[in-house]
Structures are given as structure tokens and as C-alpha cells.
């Protein structure tokens, strides 16, 4: 299998590192597995015989690798002959999904399997992209887009095949959970907890993406479309952030044995809002943890807990790659 990686930021680099580390197992599945190209926002590197992963894990910028094509674009890389799989790891843009959306469209049209951890394209064009994949007989896997390492899509698709999912709810954003946990345990104000999250690099300078529930709403869109057969867009999610949560609210809730958490829910209502979570409920996890609670007709209730961002996301990307490798072997 010939693989290209589009995007050489944090996730792109960590994916290369994981592939290098696990190459023995991968080669057992496919002796011909190789990474033939990687692009960043300015150019790409390409070698049809396979790139040297040992060198790649030791460079900071892609241009430090030999024969960096400075004027080349990711689209050129996608057009190269014999590309079988693209790992798309460009930055998330939820307004128009670009540049990831263009890359994914192009790859799928050429029958290239796609693995992505980028929410943007799926939030903007879920139906279009999944239809495109089906039409071109290739796979589009996106486990890393929702709650990082938590295997929610794989779990439902592989292990709950006879179930009807009735409700999904979860803590889908680690930053807001960090802030609310700080307020809960240390009695700090929202502003102070947010400042600390910014200082620790957990949230961006503009925290709106996290604290106004935008990130969680994007994940709700993908979960609803992928697992509950809905056809919703970002605007369909009723969204309330956590800016108005006061110390007093947190402590009143605490006295009544609740913690306030930013919860995404898909049932009759599709919303992201701060809610009261009983402290003995499996969703009541703290710090930067994520949790997803699934209610289905046969299995009843299942909760997944784990880290939703950072290098743990690579676990999801790797699993998607392995899934495609194994499916190809079977066929």
C-alpha cells in the first residue's frame, strides 16, 4: 500500500512517528506498505519507492528533508500514480472545511481511501463525502474527529451492528471540562480557570471555539450523521456555551451532588449546553477527559472515557489505517 500524508503539523508528525514505531506489525499485514509522500502548507516531499521514516521522525520542518518540492501542492501529491491511501491532517476549518475538504474530495474521486482526524470537511459536507466514498468504492474513516482516541465509530459499527442507537450524549471537549473541573474542585471563577487553561496551552488565545461550544457542536454533527442516520448541519445544533457559569452555580450544583459539564446530546433534541451531571454518573469525568455515553435498544448503556485531543488521537488514525489494510487483505 502506498500512503501519502497531507499535513505535517502535530498530528501529521505524530502519525509518522507511530507508523515508524509499528512498522513491524504493519509489514506483517502488507509487505509493500510505504509512505510515498508528505505535504505541508508550502510544498511536499515524494519518493515512489518510499520515504525514509527514520529521517522523517527527526526533522522539525518538512523542508528539512531532502528534495523538498517547494512550489508543489498537496493536490499534486494526490494526483501522483499509485496512491492507495491518504491520511489527511490539515488544520480544522469549520466554516468551509478547507483546505481539507478539497483534498478529501479529490482523493475520493480518484478512488483513494481516506483517513482523517479533521472535523471541518465532515461537518461541512458529511453526506457528500460519504456518498463520494461509496460511489468510488473506497473507504473514508474518521475515528479521530470525535473525542480523539475514543473508538466510538468503530465500537458502534463493529460491535453494535444489531443495535439501534437511541441516544448519544457526552463530554466532547477537554478544554471546557478542564475549566469546569477547576471551578468544581478549586472554587475558582470561570475567568481564572480559563486564564489558567490558556497559560497551560490547553486552549487557544481566542477560546470561543471551546467555551462557546463550537467544537463540541461540530462533533455532535458528525456523531448524529454517522451513527444516528441524521442529516444535520452545524446550524441545527442548539448551542449554549459555558461563559455564564458562575462559581455560585457550580457550588449550588455541588451541594446537590451534581457537577456542571458541557454536554452534547443527540435524541429528540440536538444540543450542546451546560448540564447538571450526577456525580455518580459515568459521564461525570474530570480534567481534560472526554466521555461518550451511548444508549441503544439491545446493549442498553455503554460509556467510553478517555483523552480527546493530543497525541492520543493518533491511536484513532492508526486503527483506521489498520482497518483499511485488513479489509484490503480480505478482498
Amino acid at each position, binding site marked *: 500500500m502506498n500512503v501519502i500524508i497531507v499535513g505535517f503539523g502535530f498530528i501529521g508528525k505524530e502519525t509518522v512517528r507511530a507508523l515508524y514505531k509499528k512498522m513491524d506489525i504493519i509489514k506483517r499485514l502488507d509487505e509493500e506498505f510505504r509512505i510515498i509522500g508528505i505535504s505541508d502548507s508550502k510544498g511536499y516531499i515524494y519518493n515512489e519507492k518510499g520515504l525514509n521514516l527514520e529521517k522523517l521522525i527527526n526533522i522539525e520542518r518538512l523542508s528539512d528533508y531532502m528534495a523538498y518540492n517547494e512550489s508543489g501542492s498537496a493536490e499534486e501529491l494526490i494526483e501522483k500514480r499509485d496512491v492507495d491511501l491518504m491520511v489527511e491532517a490539515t488544520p480544522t476549518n469549520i466554516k468551509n472545511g478547507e483546505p481539507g475538504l478539497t483534498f478529501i474530495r479529490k482523493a475520493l474521486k480518484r478512488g483513494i481511501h481516506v483517513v482523517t482526524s479533521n472535523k471541518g470537511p465532515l461537518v461541512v459536507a458529511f453526506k457528500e463525502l460519504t456518498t463520494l466514498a461509496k460511489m468510488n468504492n473506497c473507504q473514508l474513516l474518521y475515528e479521530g474527529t470525535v473525542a480523539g482516541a475514543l473508538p466510538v465509530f468503530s465500537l458502534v459499527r463493529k460491535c453494535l451492528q444489531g443495535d439501534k442507537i437511541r441516544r448519544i450524549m457526552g463530554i466532547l471537549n477537554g478544554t471546557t471540562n478542564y475549566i469546569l473541573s477547576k471551578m468544581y474542585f478549586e472554587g475558582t471563577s470561570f475567568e481564572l480557570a480559563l486564564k489558567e487553561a490558556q497559560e497551560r496551552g490547553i486552549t487557544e488565545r481566542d477560546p470561543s471555539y471551546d467555551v462557546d461550544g463550537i467544537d463540541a457542536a461540530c462533533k455532535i454533527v458528525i456523531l448524529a450523521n454517522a451513527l444516528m442516520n441524521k442529516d444535520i448541519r452545524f446550524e441545527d445544533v442548539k448551542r449554549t456555551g459555558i461563559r455564564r457559569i458562575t462559581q455560585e452555580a457550580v457550588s449550588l450544583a455541588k451541594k446537590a451532588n451534581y457537577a456542571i459539564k458541557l454536554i452534547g446530546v443527540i435524541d429528540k433534541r440536538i444540543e450542546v449546553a451546560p448540564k*447538571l451531571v450526577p456525580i455518580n454518573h459515568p459521564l461525570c469525568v474530570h480534567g481534560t477527559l472526554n466521555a461518550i455515553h451511548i444508549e441503544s435498544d439491545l446493549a442498553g448503556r455503554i460509556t467510553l472515557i478517555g483523552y480527546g485531543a493530543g497525541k492520543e488521537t493518533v491511536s484513532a488514525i492508526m486503527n483506521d489505517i489498520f482497518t483499511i489494510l485488513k479489509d484490503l487483505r480480505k478482498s
Partner: protein
Amino acid sequence: MKFDLTIALPDRPGQLVKALEPIAKNGGNIISIIHEREEPSTGIIPVSLVVDFPSKLNLKETINDLKNSGVAIIRAEEIIDTTHITVILVGRVDLRKFTENKMKKVKILGFEVSSPTSEDTCLKLELEVPAEFVEEVMDHLRKIAEAENVLLLSPI
């Protein structure tokens, strides 16, 4: 539908069986029965039953049959399942707005107001809501909260 049916029976052998007959005849399913015979006997024994009837009409007919056979009815009323809900309101809360109209079915079991450090007040309400109206009551609270620009925190 579940009903609390309390009857008074003469303290004589065979009276309970006689009283249960009309219940069965009218489609009642007895869920529990409390029969407390005191010593020394006062001559009358109160018997409390929880009975599931298909409708109110079945209860009515049972009561008629019981009365006709000389059994006194102390109490016969529907048992309403209730749910306790905690909500927290953040903002400039006018409690009257939240408790009028549709909230008639709701009992306020308790409330607590925080001492506000900002202009937003924080109010915790403990409500008892008939189980069948939970959705309706929550929808009502959501609408008022939205109209009043109050943040409503409800349980998951």
C-alpha cells in the same frame, strides 16, 4: 393506572376474600396489600391496597360493588408517579415567571439562592413533577429561560 384503595372490613373470618372478589372481577391487579389487625380488636380492620386497574371506570365499578356488599371505603385515589428534578437558574431570575401557569402540576420542594458576586443571581430549585409531565414542564422552563435570558441548567 395505580390506585390507593383503603377499605374497612369487619373483623370476622372470610371478609377479606369477599372484598377482593369485586377487585378481581373488575380487572384489578393487586400490587400490595396491608392488613393490620390490632389487639384488642376494635371490630373493624383497615386494609390498604395498591391496585392496578385498566381505567378509572373499573375502580368506580369496584367501589360500587364493594359498597353494595357492605364494605366501607376509606380512601380511593389515583397514585401519581412523580419525579424529583433539580434545576439551576443563572441570571436575573424572576421566580414568578417560572412558577405561573403550566407549573400548577409542579410542587416546589425547596429552593436556594446564592449570594451573587456578579449581577447574575443563582437559584436552585427542587421540583416534584408528575412523571408524565416531565417533558412538558422542562419545555416550559426552557421557553421561559430563553425569553428571560436566563441560563437554565437541567439534569442530563
